[in-house]
């Protein structure tokens, strides 16, 4: 059963150039994916690849330009914001910066409790009990509710952010780089917490990250984004062991491995991601790809099924492989 299905989603931001001309930044350009129930789909890519925009557009925190978002089989792309409020109970978001995402003037209890009242889940004593319970779930003492966000550490704040998201009993949570702003040791705690919560409450996540080491520990499947498009999507294992897109390979080669003797193929990407206002013709990645040919200039590769649940958008995907990232996979798993 698919909890979320995204079809042909686009989000273009208009940019004024000159007096009368408008260009469009294609932040998300025609992407398709789905998230199964109780599954975690990872969305990885560089800064500016459109990951966060995707997360926001799914929740209608940004209005998509076109495409369809099906949540629990219901098309929520075009419904009014007023009606969308009802669905917000089922879909929540955890932001990257746990401090910025909490109202600095509100005590934690008020921030967590607000959604309970809006969705008429609990009020009065019940609400207080629920707040205590939520804080307990994320491993914070119940006194925390009488304190302000600035009184907590980064990891604690992210726990508060998670408790806040959990308050309404959502089925699906967008985790927008929830650990990128945290220390490595704290990252592990939060990842474990998210994994535990997923088990306990049967949650599905869309987990946005740029760190492959992190997504490895939490995601069932991975989608790799580049320049507003999904270039490869497969199970986490397949992405790590049998990457079929040169960009995926480059990302993987950048994951640090704990073993200093491990020999790996290093692909260092040169240059920056092209300006999304005027993306390159053909394949978006060709400007930085060591395999690019004239074919890549002329025609844009579509996302194609190459294996069970493994899709890739590259003309030369069959020439990629052989080189396995076993040691990365193994190192991260242990």
């Amino acid at each position, binding site marked *: 059963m698919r909890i979320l299905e995204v079809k042909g989603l686009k989000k273009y931001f208009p940019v004024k150039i000159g007096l009368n001309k408008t260009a469009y930044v294609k932040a998300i350009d025609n992407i398709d994916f789905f998230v199964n129930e109780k599954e975690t789909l990872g969305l990885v890519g560089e800064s500016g690849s459109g990951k966060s925009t995707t997360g*926001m557009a799914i*929740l209608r*925190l940004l209005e998509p330009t076109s495409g369809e978002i099906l949540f629990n089989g219901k098309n929520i792309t075009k419904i009014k*914001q007023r009606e969308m*409020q*009802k669905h*917000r*109970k089922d879909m*929540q*978001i955890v*932001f*990257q*910066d746990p401090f*910025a*995402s*909490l*109202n*600095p*003037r509100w005590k934690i209890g008020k921030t967590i409790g*607000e*959604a309970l009242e*809006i*969705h008429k889940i609990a009020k009065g004593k019940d609400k207080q009990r629920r707040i205590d319970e939520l804080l307990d779930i994320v491993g914070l003492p119940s006194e925390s509710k009488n304190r*302000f966000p*600035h009184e907590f550490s980064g990891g604690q704040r992210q726990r508060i*952010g998670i408790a*806040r*998201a959990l308050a*309404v009993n959502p089925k699906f949570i967008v985790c927008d780089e929830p650990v990128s702003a945290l220390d490595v040791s704290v990252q592990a705690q939060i990842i474990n917490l998210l994994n535990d919560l997923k088990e306990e409450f049967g949650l599905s996540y869309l987990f946005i990250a740029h760190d492959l080491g992190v997504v490895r520990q939490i995601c069932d499947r991975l989608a790799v984004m580049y320049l507003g498009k999904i270039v490869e999507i497969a199970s986490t294992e397949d992405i790590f062991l049998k990457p079929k897109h040169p960009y995926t390979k480059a990302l993987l080669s950048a994951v640090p491995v704990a073993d200093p003797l491990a020999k790996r193929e290093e692909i260092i990407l040169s240059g920056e991601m092209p300006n999304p206002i005027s993306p390159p013709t053909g394949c978006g990645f060709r400007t930085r790809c060591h395999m690019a040919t004239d074919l890549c200039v002329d025609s844009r590769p579509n996302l194609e099924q190459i294996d069970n649940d493994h899709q890739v958008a590259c003309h030369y995907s069959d020439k990629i492989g052989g080189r396995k990232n076993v040691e990365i996979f193994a190192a991260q798993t242990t």
Partner: protein
Amino acid sequence: MSKSLLRKLRNALIVLFGVSLIVFMLMYLSGDPIALLLPMDTAPEVAEAMRESLGFNDPLYIQYFRFLSGAVRGDFGNSLHHNQPAMGLIIERMPATIELTLASVLIALAIAVPLGLVTAVFSNTIIDYIGSILALIGQSMPVFWLGLMLLYVAGVKYRLLPITGRGTWQHLLLPAFTVGAYTAATIARMLRSRMIEIMQQDYIKTARAKGVRHKWIVLKHALRNAVLPVITILALQLGTLLGGAVITETIFAWPGVGRFMLQAIQNRDIAIVQAGVFILAVSIVFINIFTDVIYTVLDPRIRYE
């Protein structure tokens, strides 16, 4: 908290000590205080006798301590013009000035908060452009010109409101609006930019993700966070205005401290000027302390340790 308050009070005393020095020096602004007090053609013997009787022949530090001991008791000597204690004369005119100040602040808030909110919520639409231009005009219009125009249009041409003096609330409207217009424009512009900035914050997105209605996001989440710089401007304005809105009070013949001070300056009535400046300084210092306390109440992140 109480410790920091004590420290603030100590600092306030230091500031006021500095102010007392400056106020004392006002006497010597033109070099010879006697020349300031007496007409040009006074006989030298009379001037000398006056100098001796007023103690201007004493060493400067003795004069200063005499001045200071008077000042802490609120005694700045008699006004030469009115022949009454200067402080009493100032205090008599304080209610009018306080009334004008409070009214202008209320008018400013009543205009600025809706204007700032609306221009921020509808930013980059025609509503915002009109509102922002209004605010810009309000901020750049000279007070004397606005005062005279209001006087002419509302008072003389259409005879809607009384143009001079103090008494009913109708008397208050024109001068209060004149004084408040600048504050209103400044606050509206500040509020607009703060609101726009805050509406981009993650916690606003969080609130939207929770399902909070837009109206409540603006009022409950954003406005409270945008209010701090407004308090700052208000406090600064309040401090200045309590010293008397000199221009406005003069235009509308408002019997407040500002107009009185101006007359005192014209009459070379030094005692009144000294008392007035001292009162102004004291009120600014205490309003600043009060504002700091309000900050800690409004923003839990601010704690003075």
